[in-house]
């Protein structure tokens, strides 16, 4: 891969999506950052883990022309295989992507300047303005994994008069989080598990820093609104005990809103396109009754709760 060698600050962006309604107030754009300090084994966006380009292979779009194999210097293309790419040999040169005419091979990741991202999100301003507190949400990956770029982007969005939100796992230095918070109207803060060991098992890291960051952020003056989100993972954190502990904890921090995000099995295609295994194949969304009981539990603590994050 060719790293961008200019002085200008750039961020590696996976995707910018318009018409987002599940991640903050109003009508929004979502900026998906690449790179994440966590490796949650259920992750919905595995293509955003690395702070590097990724190649995805969509078997259905492939017409079998074989040009990718011809052009690959590393010998990483395995013809007639549903994986297509030997990831251990691939050097991310992107030649195969460039030669593919049907987009069966596609690149994830674009190094963009703040101005470039801003130009994309600003075109949708009439929609932000036409809705209640619509604007931009940084997501990922973890936006704070590219701290300078994320903070600079938020600052510029704010200066452009946009409502700003950040969807974060909370695993960053407190200074970074605080710097971001200065330009934020809303933080969507993930709490994946209250138990430290379980958290480490599922995400690869302890939840200590995440909790400390949240507690400190809550004490700051002029803190943006904080909404806690729990991605409900079957058999991992969707039991009553974990939810009750999480609810008690956020209640003690005087946080008012909670989003329970039901599991969805959609990412399986992405794992396949990236040639990665996924441990949650075949798992289903939680039953409505279970979701409702968790919601009731949280509401008993006076929290405003959604299932799915649409508010």
């Amino acid at each position, binding site marked *: 891969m060719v790293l961008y060698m200019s002085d200008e600050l750039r961020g590696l962006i996976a995707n910018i999506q318009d018409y987002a309604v599940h991640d903050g107030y109003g009508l929004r754009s979502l900026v998906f950052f690449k790179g994440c300090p966590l490796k949650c084994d259920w992750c919905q966006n595995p293509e955003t883990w690395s702070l590097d380009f990724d190649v995805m292979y969509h078997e259905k779009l492939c017409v079998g022309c074989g040009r990718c194999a011809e052009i690959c210097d590393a010998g990483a293309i395995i013809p007639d295989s549903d994986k297509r790419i030997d990831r251990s040999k691939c050097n991310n040169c992107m030649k195969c992507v460039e030669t593919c005419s049907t987009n069966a091979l596609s690149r994830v990741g674009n190094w963009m300047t703040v101005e470039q991202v801003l130009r994309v999100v600003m075109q949708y301003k*009439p929609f932000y303005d036409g809705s209640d507190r619509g604007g931009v949400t940084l997501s990922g990956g973890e936006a704070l994994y590219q701290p300078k770029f994320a903070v600079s982007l938020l600052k510029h969005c704010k200066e452009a008069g946009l409502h700003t939100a950040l969807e974060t796992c909370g695993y960053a230095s407190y200074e970074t989080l605080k710097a971001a918070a200065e330009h934020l109207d809303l933080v969507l803060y993930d709490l994946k598990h209250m138990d430290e060991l379980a958290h480490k098992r599922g995400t690869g890291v302890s939840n200590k820093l995440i909790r400390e960051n949240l507690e400190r952020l809550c004490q700051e003056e002029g803190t943006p609104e904080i909404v806690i989100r729990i991605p409900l993972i079957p058999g991992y954190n969707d039991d009553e005990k974990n939810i009750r502990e999480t609810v008690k904890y956020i209640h003690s921090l005087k946080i008012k809103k909670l989003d329970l995000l039901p599991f969805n099995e959609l990412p399986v295609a992405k794992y396949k396109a990236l040639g990665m295994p996924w441990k949650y194949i075949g798992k289903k969304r939680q039953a409505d009754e279970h979701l409702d009981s968790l919601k009731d539990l949280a509401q008993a603590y006076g929290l405003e709760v959604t299932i799915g994050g649409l508010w």
Partner: protein
Amino acid sequence: MALSERIARYKEEHVPKHFWKEGYVKPVYLSILRSRAYTKVWKETEGEPTSIRRAKALAEYLDTMPIFIRPHELLVGFYAEDPHALPVCIESTEPDFIKKIIADGNVKQEEVGEWNELLAYWADKGLNKLLLSRLTEKELKLAKADHTFMEVLPTQYTTRSQAEYDLVLENGLNGIKKILQEKVEKLDEARENCVGGREAVEINNKQNDVKAMIIAVEAVIRWANRYSELARRMAKEEKDPARKKELEQIARICANVPANPANSFWEAVQSHWLTFLACHVIEQLSHGTSLRLDQIFWKWYEKDVILDKTLPREKALELMEEFLLKIDELGRPLPLVWRKSLQGNNYLATYTIGGTKPEDGSDACNDMTILICDALDELWINHPDFKFRWHPKVNPRAYERVLELQRKGLGQPSIKNEDIAIATLIDHYGFTLEEARSWAVVGCISPAPTINWGRCRRDAWTVYPAKILELTFFNGVNPTTGEEIGIKTGDARDHKTFEEFFEAYRKQFAWVMRTSARIKTIAEECNNQLCKRPFLSALFRRSLESCRDIMDTPEKGMPWVNVPGIVDACDSLISLKKLVFDDKKYTMSEVLEALKSNWEGYEEMRQDFINAPKFGNNDDYADEVAKKTYAMIAEEMSKVKDINNASPMPSGLIITWMFSTADKVGALPNGRKLGDWLTDGGISPHAGYDRKGPMAAILSAAKIDHRKQKANIFNQKLSPSCIEGEAGFKKFKDYVTTILNLGLDMIQFNVVDAKTLRDAQQHPEKYPNLVVRVSGYNAKFVEMDKFVQDAIIERTQHVI
């Protein structure tokens, strides 16, 4: 909300004339009775003035057609002897068209012989003969090459019959007759004093036309009385006391209306229904109902339901539902070969609700606006079609009720932008502000005033921009047939710049406009001569005033020309500009070769043309070319005229032309192959070429100057998960309002349902951009594994 038992039964028993696969949803046949009556009278009245012959023919049919009242009906009357019957106007329909229907077996077998006799009689008297003898051979050849590059001569000459129905509701037909009788006296006197000259001819014409109107009005009153008599007889024999009472009521109502002013909501709807059938279906088959349904009955609704409380709201709802089901029973015959590509209803009944009041521009919504939405919600039908006129101060309750129906997936009422409609009516067609504010949709999506200038002519035709572009590539030759049908605009390989090529396209387009406008005008004149409308004339203030048949009374022109597939033409021009003229990656000769070969053997090149910039991504490079194309088309249209000397505007309407043109329009530089559908929506981006997202697509469409277009429909698919719950609804409303504030003319949503998803599973190439969204995650549906798709389909059904 649930249908009443009566309406539930009626819905089951009613006979919609919808197509399904190769037939109709219920058995139907072509009724011969009107054709028989008109032919009989035509034979008997040779030499008499045409308007009088037409009035006598109408009277003959109304006096003799067998009538019926069905067990659950509160509103009575039908255009033929049986709900399964389809209407046809033998005098104004192309004979081959009827012959095809006979060959399909859609007539009573014992009547085939008589059909052939009737066809033979009209062979030298019908509209078809008039056209054949008035158009040049070349014009005829072009006009008859249907679905090639223009469609200008309809095979069934269905007209607009946008009468001033309030005249009947307020005055009754007797009131109109009184006006006409006064005219008779005045004309008799004028004749006595006339010294000859043109005036004598004029007076004579007026006397004939007024006499014809009186004959027609009296015939419709007699027809209503026949229903009254039938109801009275049935009431006598009815055992069920409740039904007996209803029949007695029906008998009283039909004795009173439409002869006299309506006294109640029930009477108003009944009066309108019979009047409508007589002028809109029977006298000459028409399409496009063009009425503000929540305004026309409001006076009676308000009195009965709101002020006097003599009619419970549920009863009014039931009457409205029965009325809508009756409209749904209307239909036009079509031969089998057409039915295959036209699924659903073809009658195209369109009503308008909401909007502003003509006199002061204040909001016009009322409880009937909501009642109609309630009726649609309960009936869950997509025909008749409704448009809701949105403006910034529109009643929020009515607006939300409309959005609620859109969200539930009914797909209607679609939402029209009041400001755009009013601007075009004033700026382009020259109506007054008050007239403009009275608009209702005429035809399918085009606004027309409902006061002062109701329409009686068919003022629209169709050209195919993508086909005309194809003619430009091949210097006037149709590559699918090898015939030279266009004009020579130069060898495309000689065009050195994009501008040169675009000018050639403009020339080709201008020629098609000239040719089609000329043919259209002459065809209209033929229809005017043959198809006088004595009854419709009695429903127009301006013909009551002029004493002439409405076909001989000046109309303020308001023509438009449909441009289905315009987005394919835009996308083709964009790809061409990019790859041939700007990047010079391909030469024009290579493009011509690839198009001639229908892209066979040019797959790599085709992918380049597919991946080139396209309309619908808020990309200025692409959108500038689209703007230029739209502007050129509007400009070339402004140079031609219709029969009223008015110039048409383009209308972005597609209906089902995307199928019917598929095998007529050859390969295009947007990557399309011969046989592929054209873009399915007026100004919506081509499916799959809107690569960014819903908002970007809207922003592209907003760049086109909608005030220079007659109307333009924008379709968008939405996922149910984005609009669910109270929060989702609020965001949906904000989204729609933003779109309207951006100046789009008309929007309609398809909430993606399980059926669509299943189709996407089968045909992923049709839905490359269908995005499934849940929190923090987005993925393209077609890239998912089958079992995941199945899970989503399952959930989608669950959500809806």
